[in-house]
Structures are given as structure tokens and as C-alpha cells.
């Protein structure tokens, strides 16, 4: 149930059907509440394991409750307690191991609940008295089963606007058709594409350690580097497709989390297209306040761009660190923060050297965009070593090739990614240029019916033939 499995899809569709028995907000909220509790029960059949999560939610609600009643002094304290509780329950290694609970307990979805609770605390503190949440709405928002496991991270206002409206989002046959197509596409991404790429990655890791030939070692490293970014994308975005489709069928409008990230021509742009709700959350609640605070302290105009660079580093360092509890993720955070900071410095430097117009003209050139796209992919693939591997594996990967070999290898990756991604963009543009009066042929409902049937059949055959559980969603672990 904690992945894009048949059970999860079946559960979601059943809830969506039930939810549409009435358009009234009370009915839909009741169905969502019961479904979310049932979902939790299915994930954690022993209720005792849910106690720490319940405690976390209770602390969060108490903080919101006090802030709603104007107890402003509780703000900092609530924030600190929630952050500490999160770090403690997630067993981050910054805390001594003796502090952690010994008994097993349920933490799936805790990260996403954490973001939602922090969002509520901050927004309530900013506008006390604006709203009274109440425990029902609080639980509905924090435990919403469609966003529990791996997001997307939705703002409360957006959730409430769709969920508690007596005029919810319309649901006609076209919308249903589009959501079914999206659901199938997501299911295919997770259960076929991600499963295959995961296998390529694992087999390559094995082949790298036990290569049959020296050339086999290089091709294994190539597979490791190239397969993982696409695997991660298919795994996560496929799951998000499934939950967004289920949400829409329940008349819930969940935010998009991906926007063709491999089309990004810079690392900064990449983070605007990948796990968008997380990066937006951090920009809203870390980048912006930090930048404003620094600008107040350092009012020098010439320093402002560099303050922005620093804030980018901090924000994306935190994004990296959030992904895991071990020292590998600190390096991952440094590489994410470093990537966006250097990217920003490059932009500033070029703009200064060429002038804004000159830089804009350069940034529009297709060769610049293509090279940027290739470099973005290469940097992402490189940083992901610290995302999926432990130090022992990283050591083996680094030792697989010599210094010059690595240099040539990354140059080849850059150029290869540049050419392949550029070819893909051209192909995509060419295919979408085939149009009728209603729009591109490939996005017509007829084309969608054909490819959704194809993807659905492939996913069904592969799932049944291989008789394997749906691959887990990577981001549920964070």
C-alpha cells in the first residue's frame, strides 16, 4: 500500500468513487478522513506503532491552537519542539543514539507531515486570528492519504479551497478520462520503467564490482551513472502522477511536483522543475526569510547578489540534508547547495561580463541551452552517488576508474547527455508540431487512449508475469 501498487490504486479509486456519492464538503471530508485512517491502519496494523506519530501531530496541533489564540510567545518554542521531535523520531545521527526510542514505530510520511505542520505554524503565526483550524481539519490536512507517503507538499489554503468548498472542482467525462490516463502513465512509470531502470542500476553495480572484462567495468559505471537519475524520476514522478490523478478524481487539486526536469538548462532551473513543492516550500520558508534577514543586516547593494548566492546554498544544502540521516547526505547537501550557488555565480559573472542583454541573448542560443542541459544532467548524476550509495559503495565506484579515465568519462557523459537530450527535445517538438484544429495529434484523446492502453497492458503483463510487489517509492524513506 505504500507504493504505486495495484492495492494502492484500487484503494484510491474506491475512495474516489465513494467520495463522489455526494458533492457536499462534509461528505467528501468524512470519506477522506475515514480513508486516511484506514490507510494508516493498513500501513501500520499495530496501532501502538503509531503513537509517536500521534504525539508529533498533537504537539503540532497544540502549537497551532496556541498561535490561533494569540499566544505569540509559543511560536519559537513550538517550532523548535517540532523540529527537534522530527530529528529525534527520524533518528538523525546528529543526536546520540542513546536518545532514540528502541521500540519500532511508524515514520512513513513523517517528513511530509513535518512540512505541513511547520507550514501551518508559520502561517498561523504570521496571521493570527485569520482562521480556526479545528482538530478535524488539521488531521484531514496532515494525514490526507493521497499526500501522506511522498507528498506533494500542498499549502493548507489550496487544500482547504478544494476540499471544503461546496462547489468543488468539476468532474466530467473528459476529466475522468485524463485522470485515468495519468494514473496508468504513473503506474507504468513506477512498475515498468522504474523497475527496469532499477534492475539496470543494480546489475551494473554488481558488474562493476565483478567485471567480466575491463570494458565491462566502464560500461557498468556508465549504466550506474545514467540509469539512476531516470530511475529516480520515473519512481517518484510516477507515484506523484498516480496520487494527483486519484486526488483529482476525489475533486482534490494536488499541486504538480515535476515539470520535465531533464529539460532544464541549468541546475537552478532543475530545482524549479524537480520536487517542485519541496523547493517552493524551502524557498518560501528558508530562502526568502533568510535573504530578507541578511539584507537587513548587510544593506550594501553590491553585496545583494552574493547574499542571494549564499541563501541559495543554505536552502539547497538543507534540501540535500533533508533527504537522509547519514553523513552521505551532508555531502549530497553540499553538492546541491554548491551546484546552485556556482550556477548563480556563473549567471552573475556572465551578466557582468557581457551585460544583461548579452547574457540573455547567449542564454537563448540553442547550443548554450543544450550544453547547459547536458551539464545539469551530469552534475545531478554525479551528486546522486551520495544519495543512493553508502561510503563503501562510493569508494568502490570512485576506485573503479583512474583519474584521467574519470575525467574523460564525465566529459563523455556531458557531451552524450547534451546530444541525447537535445535530440529528445527536437523529437518531442517535432511530434507536437503535428496538429489538427483541436491541438497536437499526440495529445488528442484518441492518441492518449492508444498509448494509455499500451502502457497499461505493458504494466499489467509485467506485474503479473514477474509476480513481484510494486517497487517502493524512494522518497517515502525521507
Amino acid at each position, binding site marked *: 500500500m505504500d507504493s504505486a*501498487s*495495484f*492495492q494502492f490504486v*484500487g484503494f484510491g479509486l474506491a475512495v474516489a468513487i465513494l467520495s463522489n456519492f455526494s458533492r457536499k464538503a462534509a461528505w467528501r471530508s468524512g470519506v477522506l478522513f475515514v480513508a486516511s485512517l484506514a490507510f494508516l491502519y493498513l500501513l501500520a496494523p499495530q496501532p501502538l506503532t503509531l503513537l509517536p506519530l500521534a504525539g508529533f501531530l498533537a504537539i503540532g496541533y497544540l502549537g497551532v491552537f496556541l498561535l490561533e489564540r494569540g499566544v505569540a510567545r509559543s511560536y519559537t518554542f513550538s517550532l523548535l519542539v517540532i523540529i527537534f521531535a522530527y530529528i529525534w523520531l527520524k533518528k538523525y545521527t546528529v543526536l546520540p543514539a542513546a536518545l532514540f526510542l528502541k521500540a519500532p514505530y511508524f515514520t512513513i510520511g513523517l517528513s511530509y507531515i513535518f512540512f505541513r505542520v511547520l507550514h501551518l505554524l508559520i502561517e498561523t503565526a504570521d496571521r493570527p486570528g485569520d482562521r480556526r483550524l479545528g482538530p478535524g481539519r488539521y488531521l484531514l490536512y496532515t494525514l490526507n492519504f493521497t499526500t501522506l507517503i511522498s507528498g506533494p507538499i500542498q499549502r493548507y489554503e489550496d487544500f482547504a479551497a478544494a476540499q471544503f468548498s461546496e462547489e468543488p472542482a468539476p468532474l*466530467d*467525462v*473528459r476529466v475522468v*478520462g*485524463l485522470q485515468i490516463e495519468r494514473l496508468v*502513465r504513473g503506474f507504468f512509470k513506477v512498475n515498468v520503467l522504474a*523497475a*527496469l531502470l*532499477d*534492475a*539496470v542500476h*543494480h*546489475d551494473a553495480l*554488481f*558488474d562493476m564490482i*565483478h*567485471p*567480466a572484462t575491463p570494458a565491462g567495468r566502464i560500461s557498468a559505471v556508465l549504466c550506474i551513472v545514467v540509469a539512476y537519475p531516470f530511475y529516480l524520476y520515473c519512481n517518484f514522478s510516477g507515484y506523484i502522477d498516480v496520487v494527483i490523478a486519484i486526488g483529482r478524481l476525489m475533486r482534490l487539486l494536488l499541486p*504538480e511536483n515535476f515539470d*520535465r526536469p531533464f529539460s532544464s538548462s541549468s541546475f537552478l532551473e532543475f530545482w524549479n522543475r524537480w520536487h517542485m513543492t519541496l523547493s517552493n516550500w524551502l524557498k518560501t520558508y528558508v530562502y526568502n526569510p533568510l535573504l530578507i534577514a541578511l539584507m537587513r543586516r548587510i544593506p550594501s547593494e553590491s553585496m545583494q547578489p552574493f547574499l542571494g548566492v549564499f541563501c541559495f546554498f543554505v536552502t539547497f544544502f538543507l534540501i540535500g540534508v533533508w533527504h537522509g540521516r547519514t553523513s552521505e547526505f551532508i555531502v549530497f547537501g553540499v553538492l546541491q547547495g554548491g551546484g546552485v550557488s556556482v550556477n548563480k555565480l556563473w549567471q552573475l559573472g556572465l551578466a557582468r561580463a557581457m551585460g544583461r542583454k548579452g547574457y540573455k541573448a547567449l542564454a537563448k542560443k540553442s547550443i548554450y541551452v543544450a550544453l547547459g542541459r547536458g551539464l545539469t544532467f551530469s552534475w545531478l548524476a554525479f551528486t546522486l552517488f551520495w544519495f543512493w550509495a553508502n561510503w563503501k559503495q562510493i569508494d568502490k565506484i570512485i576506485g573503479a576508474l583512474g583519474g584521467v579515465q574519470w575525467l574523460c568519462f564525465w566529459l563523455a557523459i556531458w557531451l552524450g547527455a547534451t546530444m541525447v537530450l537535445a535530440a529528445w527535445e527536437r523529437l518531442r517538438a517535432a511530434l*507536437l508540431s503535428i496538429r*489538427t*484544429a*483541436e*491541438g*497536437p495529434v*499526440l*495529445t*488528442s*484523446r*484518441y492518441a*492518449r*487512449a*492508444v498509448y*494509455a*492502453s*499500451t502502457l*497499461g*497492458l505493458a504494466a499489467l*503483463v*509485467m*506485474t*503479473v*508475469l*514477474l*509476480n*513481484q*510487489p510494486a517497487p517502493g517509492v524512494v522518497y517515502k524513506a525521507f
Partner: protein
Amino acid sequence: MMPPQSQPGSGNRKFRPIRETAIVVLLGMMTVAILLRAGETISAKTFVYRGSQRPCFRFDDPVYGTRGVPNSVCKASFPEGEMSEYRLNNCGHRTPLPCGPKPPGVFRIVMVGSSAGMGDGVSFEQSFAGQLYDNLPRDLHRPIQLYNISIMGVGAAPRYRAEFFSDDILTLQPDLILYTVSPYELFLKDPGFTVPTASEQSVKKNPMDRLGIASRFSEVLHEAPLAVAIRHYLYRSQYIYLKAAVEGDEEQKWCLRKTPTPEARELINQFDRNFAAFMGQADRAGIPVVVLMTPRRSQVAMVSSGDWSSEYDPYWLDSQVLEIAHRHGAGALDILPTLALIPDEESLYFPSDQHPNAKGHAVLAQLIERALTAGSIPQLKAN
């Protein structure tokens, strides 16, 4: 993937929901039908059984389960293999040697085993039995004969081996019996086997089967050329294959478990009884027996990967069988640890069928010869 901004049907033409839904559903169904038909047609060009083993074997023999037809010849191929000839001697054994007493001065090894031992899916010359038949006398410079009486199907079950001891083995006058055994024949249940099968339980755990779809769909698909083709390509991945093995039916995964199920324990007890009966006859005839465990790909893949969770132990079944062999006074050879050192273990088996292919038989022949001539059997000790 298509961009979300595009809204199909947003043009001026009037949208008729019922008509459009019917067209879309029809298109979807047609797509599925065309794809299945095309996939099946293309796969059927390669991934089908060809020829037949029926003229060579009686698969419902009342006494022996499976029995070779004396002096028969037939040709057949696995969906993934090449056409192989099955030429059986005057006793229905797949060996070029005539059935009967050994010539004077010859050290004869009689090998009992299952389809892998018989060389199912490859020619006799490619099979490890065929290669040992050629290589042992050549490499040891001694008159050594390997006479293979391995048989495929249910006839490979250990209970039949004691049955055909006096009928087949004694007349061949062996100096040594090479008793090959694999998880497949150990899983064959004797009449009266009563422990509730865990395989039934595991199938019920399958989420699709809760909907009552998976097992029926899977059965229909299992032998379909398209299904064989898909498995053939996917199971080349060690990772996918191992995942399928540990999530598959009990016959696949029972040899991987660390903690045996009640059924697995009873299967081991069953083998213990059958092997005791076999050894009783071998002891009376004064023929030494060496047990050779021929592992499944799943065991090899798991050992080779070097990474398995605490609930698995690919060595468990081997250790059980070898312990039983020792207890009953037989020698024991285990090639699993060495076999798992081969870097591309996936290339040693027909991916979907899971029998060893020609390359696998060649590797097995080398490893078995090395184990046989390492010194534990004085007559076969390499100089």
C-alpha cells in the same frame, strides 16, 4: 510524456460524451488486442517448443514415473534453445554406452539425476554428463566411463531411485554412483505427503490473487510465447530474476529460505528416508555413493550477488543434503560456492526455462570434474 497544458477536445467541435467515450474505449480495446496479437505472433517465431520428446519418453510410467523408450531417437528444443537430439540406448538411457555390464578393467561411474543431469535442452555432447564422459578418461588417462541414467520429469524423484536400483544400476556394475540432486527433484512429493503446502499460502498472499486474477492469468500466460519472450529478456537481469525468485511460488524459493517452512522440513525428511533406502541397497552391493548437489539458478544468483536479507540463506538446502549424505555414509560434493564465483551467472541458464544452457553445462562439467578429481575419491584422483 505529453505536456499537461494541452487540453484534448478543446476545439470548437461539439463534444458528445457518450460517443467519444465509446470511441476511446473501443480504441483502447483495439490497441490491446493488436498489441497482444502482434507480440504473440512475433514471439511465436522464436519462443516455442519445437519437435517432441514424446517418442523418447513415457511420462506416465506406473512404476518409474518417467522412463526412456529403449533405442528411441527424437528431436526437440526449448523455446529458448536449439534443436537437440535425444538418442537413447537399449535401456532407454541418454548415453552412447550400451546398456549392460561394464567391460573388464573399466572404472564405471553411474550418474543418477534429473533433467539437468540428462542434459535437457542441449545435445548430449554439450551436456555436463556428455562432457564428463569425454573428459574424465582423457584427463585422467584411465579407462573411466560415465554412464548417465538421469531422467527428466517426475521420474527424477528420489523415491524412484531406490526402485530402479536393482533394475538398472546393479546390471551396469558401477564402481561409483554419482547421485546428483537438485532442489527441483527434492520438491517432488511422495504419495501421502501431508503437510499443507506453503506454495498455496504464498500464492494467496499475492495481491493480484486476492482479486482472483493473478493465478489464472499467470497460468494462461506462463507458456504463451510472448510470456516466454518477456521472461527470457527480463530474467537476464540477475536483480529482476532474484526478485522474481523470492516472490515466486514455493517451488522456486524453498531452497532460499533461512528458516524452513514445515513443508520444507518434511521435504528434507522425505529425502532422508528415500536416500536411506537408496544407500541401504548401495551398501549391500558394496558400491560407494557420492552426492552432488546441482544448484538452481536462484541459489547461484543469490550467492553471486553476495547480498541477501536475513530471512534467506542460499546455502541452507545444500548443507541439509550434504549432512544427510554424510550421515548415511556417502561422499558429498558441493559446487555452489565455486559456481557463484562465475561473474555472469545469468549467462549459464536459459533465462525463462531455468535449465542450464550449453555454456552452463560446460561450466558445470569443469566444476564437477574438478570436485571429482580433487582427491576425495581415490580412484579418480588427478595425478
